[in-house]
């Protein structure tokens, strides 16, 4: 929740990425992500990653906060996926670091193991490229999220063809998640205030399960009331919204530049252009 508020403050700053039309930003970042996902060269990936850091700096985002926000989850998600590929057990390659010598003919259940287990050069290279690629894509997405107010970001989804009813549902879900979070926190505090001695894990789990059910019931009740509030203001199932965005010349230029960069990156990675 606190992070959401911090992000909102970045979105309101007068920086490079805060001013363009959100649709232009969204299309540009999608193009860069597409290009990044096909890049094979580590140097090019590092270049694109450095670009995201530069854009974060020019958008008046605290670069350290930005790096932390991206790299906090990378080791968890990408790291775990990439880890097996560094060992010769899964992907053969040239030895880099020898971990253990097992000797010939060793089996692990039905699987036969190599004579020695080592980290391979090719595996490390692949793992680093994979992790860097994920980090660069996540950086681009995080940049989009923290330089655009949530409500504007959701609205801009309409420009990429998401139906308005889904966008509205997303907006409302985001708006009410804070309310439900407050409710859950109050329940937890109320319990803490009346807890004299610690209870068993089973009792705690039972309490959490009960509160989850209660939160669901409360959210259903609230959704019915919200629907009534919408009806009382004329909603009849077909939501009408105001289109507020207006593309300027610089937005078209930004989209063209981002798409050109993406095409260039793809051509470089395919070896059609040499740098």
């Amino acid at each position, binding site marked *: 929740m606190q992070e959401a508020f911090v992000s909102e403050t970045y979105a309101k700053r007068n920086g490079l990425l805060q001013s363009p039309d959100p649709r232009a930003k969204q299309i540009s970042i999608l193009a860069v992500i597409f290009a990044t996902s096909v890049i094979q060269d580590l140097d090019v990936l590092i270049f694109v990653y450095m670009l995201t850091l530069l854009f974060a700096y020019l958008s008046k985002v605290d670069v350290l906060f930005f790096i932390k926000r991206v790299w906090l989850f990378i080791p968890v998600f990408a790291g775990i996926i990439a880890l097996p590929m560094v060992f010769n057990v899964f992907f053969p390659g040239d030895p880099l670091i020898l971990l253990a010598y097992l000797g010939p003919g060793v089996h692990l259940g039905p699987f036969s193991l190599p004579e020695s287990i080592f980290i391979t050069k090719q595996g490390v290279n692949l793992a680093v490229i994979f992790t860097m690629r994920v980090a660069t894509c996540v950086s681009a997405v995080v940049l989009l999220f923290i330089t655009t*107010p*949530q*409500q504007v970001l*959701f609205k801009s989804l309409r420009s990429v063809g998401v139906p308005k009813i889904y966008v509205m549902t997303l*907006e*409302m879900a*985001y*708006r*009410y998640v*804070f*309310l439900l979070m407050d409710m859950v926190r109050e329940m937890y505090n109320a319990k803490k205030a009346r807890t004299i001695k610690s209870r068993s894990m089973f009792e705690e789990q039972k309490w959490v399960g009960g509160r989850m059910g209660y939160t669901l019931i409360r959210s259903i009740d*609230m959704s019915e*009331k*919200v629907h*009534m*509030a*919408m*009806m*009382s*203001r*004329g*909603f*009849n*199932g*077909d*939501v*009408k*919204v*105001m*289109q507020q965005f207006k593309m300027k010349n610089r937005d078209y230029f930004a989209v063209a530049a981002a798409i050109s960069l993406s095409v260039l990156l793809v051509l470089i990675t395919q070896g059609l252009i040499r740098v």
Partner: protein
Amino acid sequence: MDTIFDLRNISYSYVGKINALKDVSLKISRGEQISIIGTNGSGKSTLLAIPNGLIYPTSGEFYAFDNQITEDVFDAITDNEFRSYFRTKVGFVFQNSDVQLFSPTVYEEIAFGPLQLDVPPEDVKHRVEDVLKIMEITKHRDRSPHTLSGGEKKKVCIATVLFNNPDVLLLDEPTAGLDPRTQLWLVELLQELGRSGKTVITATHDL
């Protein structure tokens, strides 16, 4: 005075078991200021929801502006001229402001109702700015409703219904949870609206 709401022998029960209203008859005339007073759980909110066409009586009949309000006609998804007229003329302020403030920003919240009632977007833009000024909430224009205080939320809720300049205002516990200064502001506003000829129906236990 013209009768605008006519509730004839209305009963309402939740899931067919819990009786909230039993055989209530009530006529409300144009320009009247009425308070529905009762204890918690006495059915005030239910009684107030019927004249806004949010729920329909289990038995009895409800007429608004000389038209009978029934679920078949009023809840149909197809455009309905009378329903649009009714929604323009009747504004409802919910007890829980968070229920009523479902849009991402204050500006969009106020614009939501008129857009649903097919007010041209250009008119909506101008009039939203006017309403923000009248209610002195222009500085909250781009804020998310969840970041507002209780009093500010209530002001936005009232702004959303005042946009259409409705003839009838229905308010469910409007002073609940407000500080004394905001309560006074609200009471004075309702008195002012009453003097200007609006019909104001308030459900409350705050005497």
